[in-house]
């Protein structure tokens, strides 16, 4: 089982066996949406959040 560290909360995040680069996964502890930047070595980053425009 491959794991990586959540960049948000430092939890161990399990990387699915069939994961692909640029895939989005979630941290089970803090719920952060994470992007798999690379698989070898495994590297995660916070996924870009949708920017909302409230008309301001």
């Amino acid at each position, binding site marked *: 089982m491959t794991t990586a560290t959540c960049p948000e909360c430092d939890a161990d995040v399990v990387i699915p066996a069939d994961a692909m680069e640029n895939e989005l996964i*979630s941290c089970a502890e*803090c719920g952060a949406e994470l992007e798999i930047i690379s698989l070898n070595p495994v590297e995660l980053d916070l996924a870009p959040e949708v920017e909302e425009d409230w008309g301001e």
Partner: protein
Amino acid sequence: MITVGIVGGSGYTGGELLRLLLFHPHVEVTQITSRSEAGHFVHTVHPNLRGVTQLQFIHPDALQPCDVLFLALPHGTASKVIDHYAALAPTIIDLSADFRLNDPEAYRRWYGETHPAPEWLDRFVYGLPERTRDQLRGAHYASGVGCNATSINLALGPLVQAGWLDQAAIEIKVGSSEGGNQPNAGSHHPVRSGAVRTYSPTGHRHMAEVEMMLGADVPIHFAVTAIEMVRGVHLLAHCMLTERHEEKEVWKLYRAAYNEEPFVRLVRSKTGLHRFPEPRIVAGTNYCDIGFEMDESGDHLVVIAALDNLGKGAAGSAVQCMNLMLNFDECAGLRFPGIYP
């Protein structure tokens, strides 16, 4: 199976104890007392238990020996008759404030009277398993916990133990069931409904339990406000830290404290509707949820916690204590989530 009696079973805490114990795998509740309800089926007072048990309340004078007694009496009552109950059962868990403090002087200061049985105080273990687990194992006497105190002790304990906390100002919001089942002018529906009523801005008695568990070295202040809620305690603490930390370090600290705790959950989610602890989510359970967010400054941490005042704040903790005292699985009878929505 062990035989259990509940003394003072017509109150909310007594009812919650009965609800939990009726489904405990190692317990048979054989008697439940109430002066005012003696002779009545318990479901006439606790309607959620209709069809679950045919128990009837008995008068306290009719109480027979049993293995464990839970005392769910008004504060100041159990301590006056503790010798009587100790003669009836080898194991006692008292949910009132009578035996929470181990120092008679602290009791006098916070409760305004001399303790009637000071020789009993050091026989009771304070019933907060997350902090007194080792003392509870095999103990014969345990006290219950104050619900507000429990929210503070669990929410701030890791910070105090690590020496991170410089001072904390806490607002605690509570539901109406904290006031018990005896009505008064303040609980009258036209007065209580919709209330946002701060009733203890300073000097709440539960501070005594906080000082006993966390020490009195770090200034911790808390106010209690009653809101439109039946069950629940919601704590929000502004914690000023002794030095700057990243939020990741807070995660690490709280994980180290609570990852092995069966009834403390860390709730600080980046997604979803419920990103921080909420009392509604833990209603009816023995869970205490704890979350936090670090201010940009790095030395101002907001900690949020939620528990059920009748659950983790009273009956749930008491059952967890019994499990430890009798070497049962610590989670027996308590391993269930709340309802949602």
